[in-house]
């Protein structure tokens, strides 16, 4: 008995400084993330300001209906998932590839130059990117129609009225904007890998490619797994700016550019119904949550260390 009690006290004493360290962060999470969660009940109410949000009527799942009842429901869900899946896979592959390549650059100045430049696109807001895309794809004056296509003898395409090109356009724009950023994360990981590993491998006669496969990738796997799991958790969320601003909010492209977030925004812009937009948020969260739990469970089966929790 006494041993256990003492053990507990010792444990507490030993770890209390660490708990102290966690305090500010946890306090922030409590204020910023957890306390507003009570507000999820708004999704189940029909908000009337005269009654106030706490006294408004409960309407069960009625606010969720508009997300499922329409013929668009399938399209927006499909688009959201497919785009995110492509983004996760392609984004990871490209980011790692670039990080590895960057790591090989010997000249420091050149390396720093590349690093600065590839982050540039991330700094430009999507509103501006939309305008720049317009500069490329405008029917009348766009770069593609006026310069590039004639070079290959192709007739001008009305980009903004043909949905079929946009999955490619949006994916490329997304990669362009985000690869530089995630590349930096992987680069930081790669840099921390002990050079002794590489030196030993070179002495053993391993080729560069082999070194990458056997040393680099396995050692950054925890980061890859973590980022991928996070990506899966957000699979029902989309980058609003990408899907709304870049196609210049052109309705006719909806079949390939409409995702859950833009659908909610467009439908509710005029109505401004708080309950309905909250319902959309809850829907996205719940799905993402379930998916992440599933994915994490799978990862744990494969390699316990890499699972998030």
């Amino acid at each position, binding site marked *: 008995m006494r041993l256990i009690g003492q053990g507990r006290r010792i444990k507490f004493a030993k770890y209390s400084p660490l708990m102290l360290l966690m305090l500010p962060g946890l306090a922030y999470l409590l204020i910023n993330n*957890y*306390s507003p*969660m*009570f*507000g999820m009940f708004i999704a189940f109410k*029909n*908000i*009337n*300001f*005269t*009654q*106030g*949000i*706490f*006294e408004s009527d409960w309407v069960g799942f*009625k606010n969720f*209906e*508009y997300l499922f*009842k*329409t*013929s*668009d429901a399938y399209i927006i869900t499909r688009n959201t998932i497919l785009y995110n899946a492509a983004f996760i896979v392609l984004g990871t592959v490209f980011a790692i590839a670039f990080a590895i390549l960057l790591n090989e650059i010997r000249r420091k100045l050149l390396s720093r130059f590349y690093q600065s430049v590839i982050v540039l696109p991330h700094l430009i807001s999507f509103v501006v990117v939309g*305008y720049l895309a*317009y500069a490329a794809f*405008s*029917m*009348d004056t766009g770069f593609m129609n006026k310069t590039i296509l004639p070079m290959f003898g192709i007739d001008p395409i*009305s980009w*903004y*009225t043909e949905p079929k090109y946009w999955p490619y356009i949006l994916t490329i724009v997304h990669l362009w904007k985000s690869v530089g950023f995630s590349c930096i994360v992987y680069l930081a990981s790669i840099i921390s890998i002990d050079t002794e590993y590489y030196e030993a491998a070179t002495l053993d006669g391993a080729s560069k490619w082999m070194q990458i496969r056997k040393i680099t990738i396995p050692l950054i796997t925890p980061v890859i797994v973590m980022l991928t799991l996070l990506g899966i958790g957000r699979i029902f969320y989309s980058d609003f700016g990408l899907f709304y601003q870049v196609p*210049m*909010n*052109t*309705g*006719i492209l*909806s079949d390939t550019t*409409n995702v859950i977030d833009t*659908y909610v925004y*467009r*439908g*509710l*812009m*005029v*109505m*401004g*119904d*708080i309950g*309905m937009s909250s319902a959309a948020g809850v829907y996205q969260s719940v799905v993402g949550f379930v998916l992440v739990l599933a994915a994490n469970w799978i990862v744990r089966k494969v390699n316990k260390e890499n699972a998030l929790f």
Partner: protein
Amino acid sequence: MRKKFGWVSLLAALMLVLAACGGNSSNGGSASNEGNAAGNAAGETNETAGNGGEEPYEIVYAYPTFENVPADILLVQDEINKITKAKINATVKLLPISNSAFTNQINLMLSSGEKLDMFAMLGNYSTQVSRGALYPIGDIMETNAKGTIDALGEDYYNATKVNGVSYGVPSIRDLAQDFGFVLRKDVVDKHAIDLGQVKTFDDFEKIFKVIKDNEPGMVGATSLANGSILSTYKTHDPLGNDLGVLLNNGLDELKVVNWFASEEFERIVRKLRDWYQAGYLLKDAATNPESNQAVVKSGKAAGWLSAMKPGFEAQESRNVGLEMVAVRTAPAVAKTDTVTNVTIGVAATSKNPAKTLQFLNLMYTDKEIVNLIDWGIEGKHYVKLDGRDNMIQYPDGVTGDNVGYKNYSWMHGNQFLSYVFEGDDPDVYSKMDEFNKSAAKSKALGFSFNGESVKNEIAACNAVLEQYRRVLESGAADVDKVLPEFLKKLEDAGIGKIIEEKQHQLDAWAAANGGAQ
């Protein structure tokens, strides 16, 4: 497994605690709301009985702006407060909020109980009513704002009533609209275009042809930024949301139809398609992000289709920077939407609606207040023109860029009481008054649709409109292929249900109001 269960339940417990805390403060909040409602009812009779040395009540008035908060706003506010303290024992806090953030901000302020007494609305009056965002001022209008009713006139005041009670007052400005085409005067003169020949929508192509033949690089008409060529040129009464309308601006019968399935709509989009293919319209009409004024100014288009009012040409000439001339193809008509386009209301969460309404009343009856809000302080932000009592200009050294205070006279109350800025027609307001009084009135003027019961269908239909409308109205789509798709999707989204509901409400309203005028 047990371990996992352990901390999941810990998490759940944590959240329950938080919810309980949230619940407690909410109980406190709603209790105080009820208390206030009761206190208000009692307070009303007290307030009107005189000041009696009470603390002046602060009224927070939020309105949308396209600019930054004016540098001298506090100075102007002080001047306003001198008058309001004396007249109604209240002070005013002007709260200009950026237009793009306005609806969000109002929603947030109303949800969280932040102090808000009155606010202006641009086009979403009926939505705010159905959200319960507005106080039913109709109940206390006679005692607090009789002057406002007089200034508006019965017809236009009644246009704001929902279920027999008014929830807001439209600003007094151009309450009706006529429609036509506005274009550069120099182009008209250069090619001797006879505007007298242009009497209908189809006649526009006479103008377009001349421009196409003689002005390379310039098209006939531009579309509105992020909108279509028809964004403001409407020949039907939209009854709030364009989903279920009355044809011919509501001047005929009270039958709600699907505008997009009508013959007229098909005719119009086919015409637009012809014009697009003939090169009379912008190639980028479906995506154009530039304002129509900028497009015309750059020489890319000659003009645009628009809703108009007295003084429209002068206004647009100023905006474009070139002299503009207009030809009208449809006579003036007033519909509920043209009236409630710009409306001021009292917030449902206001702690003293009666006092707030009294200030609102001042904005419709007190010339000094109106001009302080609209223009600022005399001598500092404007000076009167020699010998003209109601015309003003900037003082020496002050320009549109550096003036310390700016506002919109068409938003705040009674524009007819406001000064006329140099360059505008000195009689523009009396002309507007005439215009309002003589305009034809839609038979549905005064009807506001409550979409609560079909809000899912409305959301779905709006999504369909977003997808198809702009491209169809830009002429860039193949009508034979796209129009049927569009109509089918609307059907699937439930437009039939909306129309049924609207007709139902319209009939009930007509019966209650003694039939159509």
